């Protein structure tokens, strides 16, 4: 009973540098608990204290976003492939620039031209 899990670069400190690890579970929640038993701390980076997926983490089962499949309750099957990625909007640069502007606007330097 193996489910392949792809780990993003930033979280490989929990997997001894491994890009891909294996785990098992009937749901995503079970899988993350199983992974945490061998890679302590990994689950805590993906799931908030309130017990939901972290806002800036995207998890895909066979390339489909789990938030549309039941999130942590998403059902898993043997042979599934799970990919974990940091949330990036509109390409990495778009993400970076948008974050910068959001901070710029928050600092009150100028009211942005939006909501016209």
């Amino acid at each position: 009973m193996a489910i392949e899990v792809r780990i993003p670069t930033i979280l490989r400190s929990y997997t001894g540098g491994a890009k891909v690890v294996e785990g098992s579970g009937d749901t995503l929640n079970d899988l993350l608990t199983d992974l945490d038993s061998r890679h302590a701390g990994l689950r805590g980076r993906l799931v908030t204290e309130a017990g939901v997926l972290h806002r800036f983490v995207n998890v895909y089962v066979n390339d489909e976003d789990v938030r549309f499949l039941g999130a942590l309750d998403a059902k898993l099957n043997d042979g599934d492939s799970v990919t974990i990625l940091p949330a990036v909007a509109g390409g990495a640069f778009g993400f970076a620039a948008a974050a910068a502007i959001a901070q710029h606007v928050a600092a009150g330097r100028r009211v942005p031209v939006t909501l016209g």
Partner: protein
Amino acid sequence: MARYDSLLDACGGTPLVGLPRLSPTVPDGAPPVRLWAKLEDRNPTGSIKDRAAMFMVRAAEAAGKLRPGDTILEPTSGNTGISLAMVAKLRGYRLVCVMPENVSAERVQLLRMYGAEIIFSPAAGGSNQAVATAKQIAAEHPDWVMLFQYGNEANARAHYETTGPELLHDLPTITHFVAGLGTTGTLMGTGRYLREKVEGIQIVAAEPRYGELVYGLRNIDEGYVPELYDATVLNRRFSVGTRDAVLRTRQLVEVEGLFVGFSTGAVLHAALAVAHEAVRDGRRADVAFVVSDGGWKYLSTGAYGGTLADAEEALEGQLWA
């Protein structure tokens, strides 16, 4: 239909074309499953971003926030910049684009040709450097106007008022709408409109999954979700890797004669997934997807020829959507 007062008036009204060869075959007697491509590369500068650029500029003008001679600052990795450059030229504004070094050469040439000024953010510095560059420029020029496409409601409204109604008019039997997810403007605007008008419509997002170089060491606590994004508009969201996007891009030109950019390949991958599910379940489906741009701007990547592995390697570290 074929005569317009100016180029800006020729924005939108793009063709919706059937893809009979790429649509899955259904068993005898089963309801039809058909794929339809909305050719947004037929817009004035060759991409769907013309719609958003025009709506954002008009909204800013109407609100009195943009006056002739003003400077627009836009951080963009491509199509939005090209669209804004054209609109800015015709409406009398100066455009400054901040973009990463690792975008295709064609994009840079196009922007300069339209009269935009470009400030590069070093690719090697990664996202932190891009953030620093954008912040610095904005701070140095408080009078420059930022349209901020990720949070500008006129971006989504462009699609609510134009793309959505066009699709419903051309394909009243539509069952699925599939498009790329970036700023989320296309999916939010079109999706909201179609949900209001078509019972049971499925709104499906396809987002690019780049090579590891692009994600780099991005910290999970520093992620970003565009202000425009509302997950309740979507029914499903697919992540499509470089290899699948290239495979579908090539398939589209080989089988149907449509020459498109790689982001459209990713969208087609998701559209085919939902089409094949409909076949499996014996359901009728009219799946419309967005061709966001043509392939011209990506030829220099070299990813249209050679093996899929070659193409994947050529696109590693590039923002192909």
